[in-house]
């Protein structure tokens, strides 16, 4: 475990630092940041949706709480981005903990609608909260870049690369451990697994809290990335659609699924929105999502596994 973690970790950090020395196209980091952000969100969504079987339609709500917590920390408390990310994760994780309590009574569709409702309430609260800029939004200035980075965006990219690595590794670790097996038992039949001694409620709380934490962390650097934060664009339906489309396209049963989905779907979106238009880009995600749900319910990983066997 240790060797398989630290070596890639050092490699990822080195990649984040070295890449800007060679690739100087700033659009690469602009687009890459979004792909990495969705990789974290998709991985976080899959932890709850793919393994435990509870569909979260409120990803935008968790993301926006992360983004606004971090904006407040950066603007009003002059905090460091790392501390802001932790604070964002903790607040969003607390929301996830609360959502975990919903799973006692709400399953399936009702849980999904409740999370959607929750995210719309969060958006309304932020729109009506004048101290947070309300509907007008907040302006955030990026700090000066520091060596070895010549642009702050390059640092944000390296940061997201590392966070994405940590999230994927965490979920991979969970998937391989006894917790992951219990998650799948809950997804298949909750009552039976409870009878077999699986602490279903505590594990569901763990999943919702961790998933919320990761979504909050993914949202935390967003104010620095976008430099103008407002509630409508920060929690667009697109964030939720992407976070669930990517695992479904990649495959929900494996930790690599969301990663593959984020790279393919996220990368394709960045290319389409530059070469064609951002509206057509939305249409394509919708069609890809529906096509995969109907034709390849196991995702790309499922297709590969089927071909092998």
């Amino acid at each position: 475990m240790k060797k398989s973690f630290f070596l890639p970790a050092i490699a990822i950090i080195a990649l984040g630092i070295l890449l800007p020395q060679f690739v100087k196209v700033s659009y690469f980091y602009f687009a890459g940041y979004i792909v990495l952000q969705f990789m974290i969100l998709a991985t976080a969504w899959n932890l709850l949706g793919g393994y435990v079987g509870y569909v979260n339609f409120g990803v935008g709500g968790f993301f926006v709480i992360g983004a606004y917590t971090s904006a407040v920390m950066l603007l009003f408390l002059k905090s460091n981005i790392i501390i802001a990310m932790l604070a964002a994760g903790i607040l969003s994780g607390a929301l996830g903990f609360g959502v975990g309590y919903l799973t006692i009574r709400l399953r399936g569709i009702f849980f999904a609608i409740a999370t959607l409702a929750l995210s719309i309430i969060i958006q309304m609260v932020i729109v009506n909260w004048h101290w947070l800029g309300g509907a007008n939004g907040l302006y955030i200035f990026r700090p000066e870049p520091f060596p070895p980075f010549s642009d702050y965006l390059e640092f944000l990219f390296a940061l997201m690369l590392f966070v994405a690595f940590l999230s994927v590794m965490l979920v991979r670790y969970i998937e391989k451990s006894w917790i992951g097996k219990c998650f799948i038992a809950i997804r298949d039949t909750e009552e039976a697994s409870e009878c077999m001694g699986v602490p279903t409620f505590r594990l569901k709380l763990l999943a919702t809290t961790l998933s919320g934490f990761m979504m909050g962390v993914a949202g935390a650097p967003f104010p620095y990335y976008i430099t103008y934060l407002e509630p409508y664009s920060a929690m667009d339906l697109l964030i939720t659609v992407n976070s669930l489309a990517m695992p479904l396209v990649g495959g929900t049963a494996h930790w690599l699924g969301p990663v593959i989905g984020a790279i393919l779907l996220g990368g394709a979106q960045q290319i389409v929105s530059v070469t064609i238009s951002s509206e057509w880009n939305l249409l394509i995600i919708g069609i890809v999502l529906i096509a995969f749900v109907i034709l390849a319910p196991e995702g790309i990983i499922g297709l590969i596994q089927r071909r092998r066997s």
Partner: protein
Amino acid sequence: MFELVINAIVAGILLGGFYAAITLGLSVSFGMLDVVNIAHPGFIILGGYGVWLLNTSLGLDPVLAGLILSPLFFFIGIGVYLVFYNSFEKRGADSLRGLVFFFGVLFLIEVTLILTFGVDYRLVRAFWIGKSIEVGFVGISLRLFIPFLVGVILTVVLYLFFSRTFLGMITRGVAQDSTAVRLMGANPILAKTIAFGLSIATTSIAGALLISIGPVEPGLGREFIGRVFAVTVLAGMGSISGTLIAAIILGVAESLTATLGGPAWGMAVSFGILLIVLGVKPSGLFRR
């Protein structure tokens, strides 16, 4: 203050009739057929745009335009259900995939509308929009009264359909025990297909009411997800008469909140009610 509250309650009851109209279809599809059509509000917005086209090009009355469009929507509904049935229900896929399918449909409708019509607000014209009747100190605007009336009529029609006609009773039978229906020699899939078609047929009428009450833009559907699901659940899944009562409860609650607490909080009411009902009494008020 007193007059303000009475006016708010009257407006809330009228709003409730409209909410019934937009929810009835979902009460059929989600409540009776167990098809989680989260795209229902999307079809309503689609209906609203269809009505807008007929109204601006031919000058048709919006409610009439909605009625004219409803056969077309009936067939759209049948098409959607056949795709859903063949790719999810027949295969016994887990219901969450069906949910994601409808979420994708909702997203697709919104994006298609943005691509064709842009994000501008659209309005319709009719002789009754903008007029109002004064009863004492209570002002009743026709813009709310006509949708209320249509909502009540739609409730009665659907109630009669599901309690008096052969096809309606089969559909209710499917909701209770699909195998028993098949043993009685009826085709449950056909009944479900027609009933789902009907549920989508109501959305063009609901869309006509929506665009009569206020301007419509492609993303509006999302705001109504909370409302329609709150009413369906509060009514007790699949109860047609319960839908009207639950819709009026929501309408009055929203209207009072908007009057007393400020219009910005009106929408939070439906989601609040939804969360409370789901948490406290998920079977709703009028469980059939």
